């Protein structure tokens, strides 16, 4: 069972002044588009990857397989950046 979680030193935050979501990181930040923000808001260290995909599939009324592939590649990118562990 894969449970994505943020590594220490990486924080998801809503930027109220600019009304956007960002991941704050050591001496950098990653600006998120709406899709990435919707995924990461569900990353709480408890939900499994399947549960996250399932919720997004419901919300967007899109096929789970398609969502799963998008979510996975987005999370893999953040794994490479050190922000997320799977």
């Amino acid at each position, binding site marked *: 069972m894969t449970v994505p979680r943020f*590594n*220490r*030193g990486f*924080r998801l*935050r809503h*930027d109220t*002044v*600019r009304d956007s979501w*960002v991941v*704050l990181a*050591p*001496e950098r*930040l990653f600006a998120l588009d709406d899709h990435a923000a919707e995924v990461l808001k569900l990353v709480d260290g408890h939900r499994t990857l399947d549960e996250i995909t399932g919720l997004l599939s419901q919300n967007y009324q899109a096929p789970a397989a398609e969502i799963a592939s998008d979510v996975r590649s987005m999370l893999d990118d953040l*794994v*490479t*950046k*050190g922000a997320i562990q799977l």
Partner: protein
Amino acid sequence: MIPGPVRVPEPPLALLAELTHRCPLACPYCANPLDLERASAELDTAGWLRVLDEAAALGVLQVHFSGGEPCSRRDLLEIVSRAYANGLYSNLITSGVTLDEPGVARLVAAGLDHVQLSFQDSEIESGDRIGGLRGGHSKKLVAAGLIRAAGLPLTANFVVHRQNLERLPDMLALGERIGASRIEIAHVQYYGWGLVNRAALMPTLAQLEISTDLVERARIAMHGRVTIDYVVPDYHAARPKACMGGWARRIINITPAGLALPCHAAETLPGFVFPSVRTASLQSIWRDNPLFTRFRGTDWMPEPCRSCDNREIDWGGCRCQALALTGDAAVTDPACSLSPDHHLMAEAVADAAGPAPDFVYRRHRTPALVT
């Protein structure tokens, strides 16, 4: 004349909070100004707490606590706590030599997010000599262990120059060994103390090329495990750096005495009354103060910047470097090969080709004797 529309600048993303100039080290390339502030001139606790509140309201997302040595401030925990309460991501930029286990635990409890630990070299003898503190290097190694044991993510910062570049592979290995998830290899920048010591620090072009190649290879070898950031000296470059990401675009700097600056070297610029957070809000300073608006954007630019395709990439380079090398802060940074003053860079590199002079260590100036 019809006034143009009032332009509201994008808010800053980061606050560089130079809490103090006090420091146990005396590095000869310190980014602090030559005239160091004394403890008695420092902004008080309430002042810093207000700065953090105002910074968060303005749109700042990250705060870098720097110095001097920020751990020299007795109220550091209170200040870090306030950053946390404001949702700010906090980064402690420290020499590490005064950190102990309870101190690190208290910083974690206060909500600190990340530590950047400075190293002067990969080995004791040279590290202690460059930092000007006997025993300093060993204390840094202990501090790194404490930081990682507390679970804090760590950046190992190595400032490199002609007197330590040959050990760059050892520095990269040391960074990885102490558990840094990020390693910063920063060539000395030549302002303030660095400019005073330029001939003792400037690498040759060959040294620079070897170091760049080593960093590129280490990036590939450590991909996915360690992020390596690399800061080059622009004396050998064809294009200037986008200093501070552009003047008054992304970062606001507060000095120990509470002056607000677009960059930490801006106090060298003549003809400005430097705004103080003691008498003005961060918002009004960022938006309206002449020091901030003077070089913001592209309207101020002379040729060759004004018509250059790179003008919104490098933002004309560095104002303080233009001033330091040409005497005029409003000209193209001489680091640019298109600058009519570009020959100054090659001349400085040639000057540094001889034997390295002794360091002028960073110290508080002795007050002049009254006679």
